[in-house]
């Protein structure tokens, strides 16, 4: 049992707020709050003790506060049975929450200019990131998108904490009609961004990575893959990622991610096992690759 790893707690709901088309739940969870770094997420058991819904639901942590020893907030849209159940929680109900999970966003050493790009619920983890970056003296600009106005999470907060905030919606009901990548290039140029952080659906992350590449700046992406366990034991959340050693591995987005360097994610091959991935059918690894494997994770 480790001290900075995730904890599992049954924590009381402080409040559930409805905001446009989404909900914000705050729970009292000091153990999670004190360990939290931006980009990390929680996983929440849904449906109660006798639920037929077995698996936890992952949500990015949107905010932590010191109240009551430490609170954690996450935002969610109702998608299916799990989020519908969560939306019905009331204060003082208990939630079984595990967190903080996953690798956080790496923060720049220097006060550089960062543009933060979020799609739909993917905006959520960008807000604590923005705070951390601001604390380091970074300039922060936001580009947030969604299907429609009410699917753009926390637009007001974005305006408040960022230098600039641009919005896009598929239906044009808010901000520019179109995709986040339709405005991203302009924002990068105008804000002289040095780095991009993005979170949202895979196609968006791919497009954002391409834009950042065109501008020659690094990009960190946080993926939202389907996850059964969130703690690295089920192997259902894998995506192909190229390691520092040039070898592609099927890595777990819950513990090896959810944050990756955009250039290292093989977006074109998500949903496949690339032929040159370590252990792919027909793959014959060099003994060097194997030795590297055996050394990994020892530390």
């Amino acid at each position, binding site marked *: *049992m*480790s001290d900075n*790893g*995730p*904890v*599992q707690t049954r924590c009381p709901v402080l409040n559930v707020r409805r905001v446009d088309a989404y909900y914000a739940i705050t729970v009292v969870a000091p153990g999670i709050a004190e360990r939290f770094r931006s980009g990390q997420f929680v996983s929440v*058991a849904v449906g109660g003790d006798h639920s*037929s*819904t*077995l*698996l*936890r639901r992952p949500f990015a942590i949107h905010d932590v506060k010191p109240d009551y020893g430490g609170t954690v907030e996450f935002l969610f849209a109702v998608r299916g049975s799990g989020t519908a159940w969560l939306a019905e929680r009331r204060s003082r109900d208990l939630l*079984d929450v*595990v967190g903080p999970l996953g690798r956080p966003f790496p923060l720049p050493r220097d006060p550089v200019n960062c543009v933060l790009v979020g799609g739909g619920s993917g905006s959520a983890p960008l807000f604590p990131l923005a705070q951390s970056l601001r604390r380091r003296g970074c300039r922060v600009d936001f580009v947030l998108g969604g299907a429609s106005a009410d699917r753009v999470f926390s637009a007001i907060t974005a305006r408040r904490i960022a230098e600039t905030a641009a919005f896009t919606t598929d239906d044009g009901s808010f901000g520019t009609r179109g995709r986040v990548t339709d405005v991203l290039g302009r924002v990068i140029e105008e804000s002289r961004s040095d780095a991009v952080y993005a979170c949202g659906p895979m196609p968006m992350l791919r497009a954002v990575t391409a834009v950042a590449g065109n501008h020659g700046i690094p990009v960190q992406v946080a993926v939202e*893959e*389907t996850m*059964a*366990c969130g*703690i*690295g*034991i*089920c*192997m*259902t*959340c*894998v*995506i192909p990622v190229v390691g520092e050693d040039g070898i592609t*591995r*099927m890595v777990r987005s819950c*513990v090896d991610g959810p944050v990756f360097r955009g250039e290292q994610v093989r977006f074109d091959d*998500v*949903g*496949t*096992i690339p032929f040159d*991935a*370590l*252990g*792919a*059918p027909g*793959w014959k*690894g060099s003994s060097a690759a*194997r030795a590297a*494997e*055996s*050394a*990994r*994770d*020892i530390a």
Partner: protein
Amino acid sequence: MNADLRTRLGSLRLPNPVVTAAGCAGSGRELEQFFDIAEIGAVTTKSLMLEPRAGRPAPRMAETPSGMLSTTGMQGPGIDVFLQRDLPWLLSRGGRAIVSIAGAGVGEFGELARRVSEAEGVGAIEVNLSCPNPADPAGRRFADDAAQAATVVQTVRSHARSDLPVLAKLSADVPDVVELAGACVTARADGLTMINTLRGMSVDTRTLRPAVAGGMGGLSGPAIRPLAVGCVYRVHEAFPEVPIIGVGGVRTGTDVLEFMAAGASAVGVGTVNFSDPSACTRVLREFNEALDARGVSRASEVVGAAHRAGTGV
């Protein structure tokens, strides 16, 4: 919490009957974040192959009522990496290891058994008979053909160190699980683990396409528990001397009681680790409490109770 929880699987002695199910506990490190891994009976590893393995494409899972469908394709680092990297860590924490192996053919099973036997500190070998038999013309699994399964077990037995118990892991969706068990016992399996996931399918009703890549996946979780308990009961009835690890949908301490009453000497926790990372230690505590509440002083008394007339214990 006074009951004597010790249990035996052939020559393997465990401090208590709660183990992890193969492929459902990572390397042990991940769960160690939530409880002391030495506290539970043993960690069963994912099924290891000779070579590293990338597994199947995503999507790899879908949720089903009280269960899940998965298809990871036995992604793993290969046996050598496990023996060099993960096993020493587990032993250093005081844990016990049941090493599950999966050969791409009969010969590989032998080689895997040999390599596992050379390592220090392994508690037992579990033979995953649910992997496809490359020599089968219809692409069936070893478990689908009792004779093929027996050949694998025999090969493992003859390559494994003689003091290392060999457990055969059976599937339930086979022509006849009792016959399969008998063939494995005859081939000198020291124990049986059952059940593995059952082949099933889910359709994504948005896209109307199969929910996991490749169509079929393996069904696991509480949904399948009655099928697992049924297999344990029938096999224990046929071979009462053979120790069994009961696996399938264990969620609570009373589920352990259920499997043991049906005939299991130990019980594996699988899918429920995903939904509750503290499950193993919670289940162990609840089991302990359940024995206390019933005034049972030794867990082993419960084994097979459902086969006996009266109230069992």
